[in-house]
């Protein structure tokens, strides 16, 4: 399985290397002309439409579901409740029991007896048209006995807390601990804090976000006798197929899952969705194709959310600014249920809180908490943005406490270039990099000295618009993941990736990848890799993906793993193709294999000019199969599976210059510069695009986005009117650059880029805003930095306050007796 021991550097075979070229994307042709295959485009003969009746209460017992009126509605074919599906629906799977005693309350796709968050399915309508299915939703009457909703994590772990699930003992799903002293990777943390000159403690709120992919989720299921084909807007067709087989009992080999064109995911489509299970069960029951496509409001309310941690962070240091210890206690909101990797997200972050710094001691504790909200799960960065935010914020707080320049404090403590590979206090081996070089380049890019000078001028003149500069010198963990490491963390699967290369008779090449793209440009980048390896034209390569019948093995796309793991599998498969072709070439050229050179797609006999046979000619020769060696098969096709031995660790320095209007609280990014080291760059256009997109989402966490629930558990940011996905006018121009330190763990040398911008940018932006107003006594501002919060922090003190509002569902208050959580409101 692990084939890295003989990993050579990527060898360019053609005269002009494809790797490193800003190739325009192959994918674009269909996307810019509207010739796309989004799941919702699909229409099948006899297809029925599914809509979902959803709970409008956060917590309650279902006492009655009356579907009689809906059944009489025009076009309605069937109406099913949880009771109708209880015996066959199983539980939405959770693949990551992070501790041996983790409590999983079970996750029905449709509620049977109890609802645990607003938006949970309580009935489904099947109708002849989309409109008929939507119209009948309001004809279903559901009665509830209301229960008090659990919404605030700090209250949920308190003494007299109401329970989110009454069949389990507490609101705590698990208690996960990593202690470097106990693990043997660091010193005793308590002793380190006892001995320290300076200890700084902070409570940070890493707010709940919504992935908000642009294409709403959609699923179509076609039954064919005992076989089923599902098309779904998913990141994970392979994982989904296995999980659906386990959940529904439909044999895996009778199930085919296809991810056609998929419009973004960002972790939000890394899920086994209740609606996917329901569409499959109903297609089986009715024997007809079934389609479900969500509305945007449905998506925001019921697709999984991300982040949502309260972080208590302590840092210890001596007076000179040498860090001595880091202690993190995290409350992580699971929401009402555990979905695919809900509990694993904070655990994945556990190893990244030390960042790039040489902490001698480290302790991490995390409680996964149930609340009556939609479950959280992967969102771009998944655990690492939370960790990076905490460490980059607390480093600034320590710098303020010590009266040191924040960059000087970082420089004093970060791993130096000559110390790689470096084993951290969390036990990870960072592979390569140069934090000094990236930082210097970023300082030059942003024009640091001029900005500091302007900041000084504005301070001195008492300008109402103050300027701040914020840093984030980050690293992250990519290339998910070494299977053995995942096993040691109790994850339910491996982290390998598969690829096949099929050499067609005309010399064209089909590359099958198990890594399923949804906007990342795999078709282009994989073509570049294969063109270099096989010496064939870029245009002669077709990349196939996203269909379990075409690409039978795969682990799909998340965790910045595609190029690092999936791309390496492609390179390994190409190596095997060349090895097989070599035998045929030796036979046809009547030469010894050892005397053959392979370059630019051609085999030549060393010392015999004029002899040449291209790999594309060999493809035709083995298709005809008239003349090939006795001891080989007539094919040069090959498969490979790659399992990395380590993660890869991109790093970089992000600098934000921020204007804060102290009169209005309005913040504006004046300049943003970042230098990222993502190892070898296969396509600079795609890499830069990934950085831009990540920056947009990371900045949006700092400035714009927050999923807010009211005191009844209603999502008050349930549309794009209220949940502020930034527009072009809300974001600045980004100045980006790169340093390149090749990743030693894979032959491409790539480290992964999909999440870097999102992980790095959030603390840089918040640190910049605070740097602008520190001298006014501001110590923290809660994200997102809305003008109201900034104004309150500047003029009233505190961190700007909570946005959760008073109850909006009067019925919940009146008839539930005592929901008991009204204290959450009223901060503003």
């Amino acid at each position, binding site marked *: 399985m692990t084939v890295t021991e003989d990993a050579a550097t990527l060898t360019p075979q053609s005269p002009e290397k494809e790797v490193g070229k800003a190739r325009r994307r192959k994918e674009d042709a269909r996307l810019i002309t509207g010739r796309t295959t989004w799941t919702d485009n699909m229409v099948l003969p006899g297809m029925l439409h599914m809509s979902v009746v959803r709970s409008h209460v956060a917590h309650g017992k279902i006492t009655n579901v009356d579907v009689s009126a809906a059944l009489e509605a025009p076009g309605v074919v069937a109406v099913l409740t949880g009771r109708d599906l209880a015996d066959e629906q199983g539980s939405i799977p959770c693949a990551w029991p992070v501790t041996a005693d983790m409590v999983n309350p079970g996750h029905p796709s449709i509620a049977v007896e109890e609802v645990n968050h607003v938006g949970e399915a309580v009935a489904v309508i099947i109708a002849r048209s989309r409109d008929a299915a939507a119209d009948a939703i309001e004809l279903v009457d559901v009665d509830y006995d209301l229960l008090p909703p659990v919404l605030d994590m700090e209250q949920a772990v308190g003494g007299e807390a109401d329970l989110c699930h009454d069949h389990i003992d507490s609101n705590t799903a698990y208690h996960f601990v990593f202690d470097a002293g106990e693990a043997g990777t660091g010193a005793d943390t308590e002793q380190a804090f006892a001995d320290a000159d300076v200890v700084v403690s902070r409570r940070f709120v890493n707010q709940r976000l919504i992935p908000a992919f*642009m294409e709403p989720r959609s699923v179509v299921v076609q039954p064919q006798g005992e076989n089923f084909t599902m098309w779904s807007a998913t990141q994970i067709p392979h994982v989904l197929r296995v999980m659906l087989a386990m959940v529904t009992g439909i044999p895996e080999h009778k199930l085919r899952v296809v991810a056609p064109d998929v419009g973004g995911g960002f972790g939000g489509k890394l899920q086994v969705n209740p609606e996917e299970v329901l569409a499959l069960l109903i297609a089986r029951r009715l024997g007809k194709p079934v389609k479900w496509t969500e509305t945007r409001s449905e998506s925001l309310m019921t697709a999984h959310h991300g982040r949502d941690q309260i972080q208590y962070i302590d840092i210890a240091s001596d007076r000179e600014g040498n860090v001595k210890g880091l202690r993190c206690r995290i409350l992580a909101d699971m929401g009402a249920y555990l979905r695919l990797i809900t509990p694993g997200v904070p655990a994945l972050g556990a190893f990244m809180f030390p960042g790039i710094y040489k902490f001698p001691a480290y302790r991490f504790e995390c409680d996964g908490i149930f609340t009556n909200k939609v479950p959280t799960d992967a969102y771009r960065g998944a655990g690492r943005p939370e960790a990076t935010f905490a460490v980059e914020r607390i480093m600034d707080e320590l710098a303020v406490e010590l009266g040191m320049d924040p960059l000087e404090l970082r420089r004093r403590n970060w791993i130096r270039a000559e110390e790689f590979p470096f084993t951290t206090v969390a036990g990870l081996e960072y592979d390569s990099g140069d934090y000094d070089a990236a930082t210097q380049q970023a300082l030059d890019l942003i024009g640091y000295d001029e900005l500091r000078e302007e900041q000084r001028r504005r301070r001195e003149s008492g300008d109402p618009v103050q300027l701040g500069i914020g840093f984030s010198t980050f690293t992250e963990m990519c290339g998910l993941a070494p299977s053995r490491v995942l096993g040691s963390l109790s994850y339910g699967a491996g982290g390998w990736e598969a690829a096949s290369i099929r050499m067609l008779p005309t010399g064209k090449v089909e590359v099958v990848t198990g890594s399923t793209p949804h906007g990342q440009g795999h078709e282009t980048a994989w073509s570049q890799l294969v063109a270099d390896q096989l010496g064939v034209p870029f245009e002669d390569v077709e990349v196939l993906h996203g269909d379990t019948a075409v690409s039978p093995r795969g682990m799909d796309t998340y965790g910045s793993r595609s190029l690092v793991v999936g791309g390496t599998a492609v390179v390994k498969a190409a190596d095997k193709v060349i090895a097989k072709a070599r035998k045929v070439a030796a036979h046809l050229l009547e030469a010894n294999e050892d005397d053959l050179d392979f370059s630019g797609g051609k085999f030549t006999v060393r010392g015999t000019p004029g002899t040449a046979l291209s790999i594309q000619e060999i493809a035709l020769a083995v298709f005809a199969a008239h003349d090939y060696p006795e001891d080989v098969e007539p094919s040069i096709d090959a498969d490979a599976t790659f399992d990395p031995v380590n993660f890869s660790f991109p790093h970089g320095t992000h600098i934000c210059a921020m204007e804060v209007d102290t009169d209005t609280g309005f913040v504006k990014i004046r300049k943003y510069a970042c230098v990222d080291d993502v190892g070898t760059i296969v396509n600079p256009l795609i890499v830069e695009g990934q950085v831009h*997109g990540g920056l947009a989402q990371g900045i949006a966490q700092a400035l714009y986005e927050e999923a807010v629930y009211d005191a009844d558990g209603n999502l008050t940011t349930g549309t794009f009117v209220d949940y502020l996905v930034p527009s*072009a*006018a809300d974001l600045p121009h980004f100045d980006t650059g790169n340093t390149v330190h090749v990743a030693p763990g894979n032959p491409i040398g790539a480290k992964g880029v999909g999440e870097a911008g999102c992980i790095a940018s959030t603390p840089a932006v918040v640190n910049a805003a605070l740097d602008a107003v520190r001298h006014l006594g501001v110590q923290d501002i809660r994200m997102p930095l809305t003008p109201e919060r900034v104004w309150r922090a500047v003029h009233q003190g505190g961190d700007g306050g909570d946005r959760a509002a008073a109850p909006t569902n009067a019925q919940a208050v009146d008839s539930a007796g005592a929901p008991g959580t009204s204290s959450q409101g009223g901060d503003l």
Partner: protein
Amino acid sequence: MARVSMRVDGVTYTDEVEPRTLLVHHLREALGKVGTVVGCDTSNCGSCTVHLDGQAVKSCTVLAVQADGAEVTTIEGIAAPGGALHPVQKAFHEMHGLQCGFCTPGMIMASIDLLKDNPRPSEHEIREGIEGNLCRCTGYQNIVRAVQQAAGEMSGTTDTLGAQA
């Protein structure tokens, strides 16, 4: 039901529609114009942008009956199949102005409309001009570059803005 007749991407279609039918649903479900997509339900995202008698509209905020007698152009109608791409389409490809591509039809249709009103927009004017269209992938920078590039090509001046510039 109401009878509506409209010319869409050069072809005249006459259909019976429910009066409440949105133009985008009529385009997608009755006419098979699935290049135009639905991204939200509050007219915020702009994914469904088409041209109605030459003006960009969000086709989720127009009833099909309001388009009776109108000329509608969708992303599928701005370049003939196999023919040359529209300069804005070409620029989105050249400048890597798309990733997943879901917002792209609407973004291209909005950008064409912007350039019709303002053939040489500044970066600020482009950002303000397309703020009714949301993209979750690109961070907009390469979309801005694409619109600048298309503006140069459409106004006949050579723009040398490289994607890596």
